């Protein structure tokens, strides 16, 4: 076959190469999807950085909701169940993180059909009756590279479509469950702050000594601020999960047109939003 390849055919081959290049522009790699999944994974892995979880809440609430210090001395807070909740939530974050990592691998540059070795195997020279010129070898190598992108992009789009159609609902509900956990815990911390304020008010009203008042106000303010910081962290986590959920929804809604400019802009927007929320 290769003996039909000679210099006079080179322009035809180059035209073919140009055509393939045009196709390649139409089938750009899924780098926006990859950027979105990367920022999602980063967020999901950030859960390790929140150092106030169910068990911490359990210990704090155990003391704050009990009004008598005398009773507390022998009080068993029993936070075993909350420690279990923490480990379940951790696993849930890991499962979601694995999912987006895998999706990113499929969409990203790391998973390409590599036709380049075939291109590399064609070198200029004379093989019996077969002559391959330097130009022809170069064209074949370039075509192999283009084929890599074309085949891979088509394969990836098809697979991503299959995955999104089959699992989108499951992912969306799982994200809702994560958000519920976040909101429930954050709200219970908020209730603890309300209780803290109530106790501060009652103690302040019950004493006239300045020293005691200062001690009450100081302790109250410190704990109020600490809990406020934890709630703000959970707020951020909730917002970034919302963006991940919306991004996944956008992918699902545009599953038949993963290369549309509109979707690319939208998905990159979600990726930037997630990064912004995490860093501010």
């Amino acid at each position, binding site marked *: 076959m290769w003996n039909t390849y000679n210099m006079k055919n080179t322009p035809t081959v180059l035209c073919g190469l140009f055509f393939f290049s045009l196709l390649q522009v139409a089938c750009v790699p899924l780098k926006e999807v990859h950027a979105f999944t990367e920022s999602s994974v980063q967020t999901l892995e950030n859960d390790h950085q929140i150092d106030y979880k169910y068990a911490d809440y359990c210990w704090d609430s155990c003391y704050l909701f009990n009004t008598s210090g005398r009773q507390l001395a022998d009080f068993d807070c029993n936070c075993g169940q909350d420690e279990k909740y923490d480990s379940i939530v951790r696993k849930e974050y890991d499962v*979601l993180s694995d999912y987006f990592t895998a999706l990113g691998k499929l969409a990203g540059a790391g998973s390409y059909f*590599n036709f380049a070795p075939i291109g590399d195997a064609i070198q200029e020279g004379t093989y019996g009756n077969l002559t391959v010129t330097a130009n022809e070898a170069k064209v074949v190598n370039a075509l192999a590279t283009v084929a890599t992108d074309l085949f891979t992009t088509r394969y990836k789009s098809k697979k991503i479509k299959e995955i999104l159609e089959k699992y989108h609902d499951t*992912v969306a509900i799982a994200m809702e*469950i994560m958000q*519920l956990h976040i909101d429930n815990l954050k709200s*219970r911390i908020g*209730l603890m702050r309300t*209780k803290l304020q109530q106790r501060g008010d009652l103690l302040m*009203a019950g004493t006239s000594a300045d020293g005691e008042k200062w001690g009450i106000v100081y302790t109250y303010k410190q704990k109020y601020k600490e809990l406020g910081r934890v709630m703000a962290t959970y707020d951020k986590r909730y917002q970034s999960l919302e963006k991940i959920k919306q991004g996944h929804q956008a992918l699902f809604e545009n599953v038949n047109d993963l290369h549309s400019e509109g979707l690319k802009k939208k998905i990159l927007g979600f990726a930037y939003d997630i990064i912004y929320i995490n860093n501010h």
Partner: protein
Amino acid sequence: MGTVNDAAFANKLGHFYQNMADGMGQFIHTQIGTLPKDKVTSLTDQQNQLINYANMFFTLSDRIAFEESETYFKGISDATDDIDKAVKEIKDVNKAINIAAGLITLAAAIVTENGSGIVSSLQTIAGAIKS
């Protein structure tokens, strides 16, 4: 066993009672100096009840969500396995391409009676098969 919607509903009820408790807390906070002691006691008792209800609903919401979560997170693990399989398929095809490339080079080396080329392409093929 409830559904995720039940968990969301319990969460909403929790927020309703939480808002009531917060409102009452603000009232106590601003009026505590002017209210009689028995009135303060009565109001704080009521606020405590509202806090307890809110806590109860948030706890219920979490319990339902945790019961439900196993099904959905198992589904996501299945999705991850499917994607990993797809990525592995790419790797397998790459392996086939590498073997084919080695065979083409080997053919060229045989045609040109290039001894060292034959050896190196055989090594390439062996390496591609092993990978």
